[in-house]
């Protein structure tokens, strides 16, 4: 049950992890004992009473009510213990302390965005150490699931309703966030990091990442490209992901599945973002989210178009 983890469990770095792990090992060991007992009896009987000749005629065994009762009673007691214990740790996992620091989380195919109380936004989750953090999570599209193995926390992220998860990191380090609910093509690439920082570092980071308006449109476009999650589908280096690459996109001639084609000018780029299903580029499925028309402001879309045009 150390921080480094074992063959059974990964390193642990949150306050609840210890309780979860203790329960885990308790059931594991109890199960192992039951298992070894049952298997021991099985192997012993199979060997001790093996058939010696075709004419073996075993005497019927009188069934013992006591034995029958005991193997009803003992497992019942065990599961009762495990249930109560599991229930208490579950409540601990479910109820965030009132002084928790709150961060908003948006999940979409196939990226995460984290928004902090001061307006800072990031693609990796930054949290202060030794302070309870509560995440308020929502999805733009299908069901995702927020999972940090090192913290032993997980919760599904749904469209149209908030779900919550809380934890208190105990160590300054970087851990993986993975998406645990199947969400399509790049489900296995939908990962991010939790960067646990000291309180000072965290506050410094927060200030640095506040949007102070000093960026150029193309730079702001780049930020949106990161934060709004265009990158899992659109590469900047020419590789084809779920969507066409942005490299060399602006100004090129696009062919659509309906047989038509068009030159990618500003208006085309804009339309592709706000109404992606209207013209679907040949060789791709219409999987780009429809959400952006609602989520992005006009400035943000302009900035994105500016950014795409720079990718030549």
């Amino acid at each position, binding site marked *: 049950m150390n921080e480094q983890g074992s063959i059974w469990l*990964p390193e642990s770095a949150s306050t609840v992890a210890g309780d979860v792990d203790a329960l885990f090992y308790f059931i594991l060991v109890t199960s192992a004992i039951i298992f070894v007992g049952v*298997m021991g009896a099985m192997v012993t*009987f199979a060997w001790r009473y093996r*058939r010696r000749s075709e004419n*073996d*005629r075993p*005497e019927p065994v009188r069934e013992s009510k006591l034995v029958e009762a005991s193997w009803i009673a003992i497992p019942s007691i065990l599961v009762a213990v495990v249930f109560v214990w599991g229930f208490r740790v579950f409540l601990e996992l479910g109820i965030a302390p009132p002084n928790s620091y709150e961060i908003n989380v948006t999940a979409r195919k196939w990226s995460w965005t984290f928004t902090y109380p001061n307006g800072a936004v990031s693609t990796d989750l930054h949290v202060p150490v030794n302070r309870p953090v509560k995440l308020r999570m929502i999805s733009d599209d299908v069901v995702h699931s927020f999972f940090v193995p090192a913290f032993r926390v997980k919760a599904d992220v*749904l469209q149209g309703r908030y779900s919550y998860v809380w934890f208190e990191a105990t160590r300054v380090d970087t851990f993986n966030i993975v998406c645990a609910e*199947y969400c399509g093509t790049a489900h296995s690439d939908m990962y991010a990091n939790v960067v646990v920082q000291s309180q000072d570092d965290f506050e410094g980071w927060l200030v640095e990442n506040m949007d102070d308006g000093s960026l150029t449109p193309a730079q702001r476009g780049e930020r949106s490209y990161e934060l709004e999650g265009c990158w899992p589908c659109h590469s900047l280096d020419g590789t084809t992901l779920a969507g066409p690459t942005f490299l060399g996109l602006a100004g090129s001639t696009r062919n659509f599945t309906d047989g038509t084609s068009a030159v990618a000018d500003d208006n085309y780029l804009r339309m592709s973002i706000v109404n992606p299903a209207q013209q679907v580029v040949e060789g791709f499925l219409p999987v780009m989210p429809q959400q952006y028309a609602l989520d992005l402001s006009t400035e943000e879309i302009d900035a994105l178009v500016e950014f795409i045009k720079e990718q030549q």
Partner: protein
Amino acid sequence: MSEGSHNYLSARKGLWSWLATTDHKRIGILYAMACGTFFLLGGILATFVRTELGTPGETILDQDGYNQIFTLHGVVMVFLVIIPAIPGILGNFVLPIQIGAKDVAFPRLNLASWYLFMAGALMAVFGWLFVGNVDTGWTFYTPYSSGASNAVLWLTSAVFVAGFASIFTGLNFIVTVHKMRAPGMTWNRLPLFVWAIYATGIVQVLATPVIGITMVLLFLEKLMQIGIFDPALGGDPVLFQHFFWFYSHPAVYIMILPAMGIISDLMGTFSRQQVSGYTFIALSSVAIAFLGFLVWGHHMFVAGQSALSSIIFSMLTFLIGIPTGIKVFNWVATMYKGSVWLRTPMIYALMFLFLFSIGGLTGIMVGVLAVDVHLHDTYFVVAHFHYVMMGGALIGLIGGLHYWWPKITGRMYNETAGVIAAILVFIGFNVTFFPQFFLGSRGMPRRYHDYTELLPNFPEFAPLNLVSTIGSYILAVGLLMILVYALYSLFKGPKAPANPWGACTLEWTHTGRLPDEHNFHETPLVTRGPYDFRLADDVFGPKEED
């Protein structure tokens, strides 16, 4: 006894005599061929899955390809193999004979079920091959599924149609057990396999309609956006999950109960001992069948259902461990002071005990609220359900097929080959799936095409996955070996005696080497229990040597 020309195989000839048969034994064989083919398909898909995961990075499949393959693997294995297989193959072949009936209550409905099942299977395969990607996972969660390709329409229809096949099969067996028993075949003289199929029938009849309507609603959601499950239209995706698991949890007992029935029969026969706790085992099947309806929410501990329901579901989940434990303990106790004959079927029965106990105990682990938060949707769950489904239900089926093989085909298989294959399967299975417990509890999510990006923090993912992949190849070799010696036995195997195992149920004691077309010339009169080896001293039938 039986004079070759009158048995059920030789009584009629030609393709049509098979395709239009209402003989429950022949329908059983139709199911065997269909399910065997689908198992081969599902297994090949599984081998692709394992090969892709064997090494980090893209090995043989891209992301979309992988997602399709594991979805089909799950759908094929669940809906086309394990749910229909045991009731379809062995339930059909054995159950009517075991209760002394000449056929099931509705033979034509029985045949119709097989055709419905095949229609469902063809629809699924058609949708996959010609309509589009099916990459939803076997759970079809909305809104992902309602936004996926039109192939989902075909798959949901397939599940709907195959579901009705399952309903009619269950209905048929319930009525058969109630109304068709031979004189003297009282409820407490029923072989435990019959009890198990009976309990399964209850689950099939009560649970399957719900997946039927769920699939209809999902179909309509996809076709015309009726907004019941899609949150973008005001629907509720969690409601879908409730509907889905309300069927699919009981469905896991549709898979395991018949296998438990097989194990009970094997334990009795190969220990030459009254099965210990007969009444407990019989009634625990029914208890499991009913409790199974109350625990579906344990698949949704982190899905956004209320904490209170999670707590209730967790509690009820544990209750299922009790009747299951009763069975396990009684099976082991049956061997006590018996005469244990370690033939291939018995080896599979012991293997079942081993693997199913691991699967079941890890089921209890994931049923613990706080622990499941960590384990949900990781490979730990994958390992759990392969231990119960493959290690439990399928190993039970394989054991049962060996046991009844002489009665079905009239020939023996090679015992040595049988034992070697069993050992290979056992080793291969554990090497494949045991490492997945470590993978899962250490944090590897399921349905992952690749884990390269996680290696810096989780370097052990690579070796564990590799071991698992190697295991799956060993497993495949073992299964292939079974296929080979089974085919060999079919054509070249030595003729079997009427009762090679010295069993005491009617299919062994009251039929010839191969059963007659109508099972019995005259309805047997039953005067003793199914495992009463003392009263049936001459149960070993005359040996036929040629």
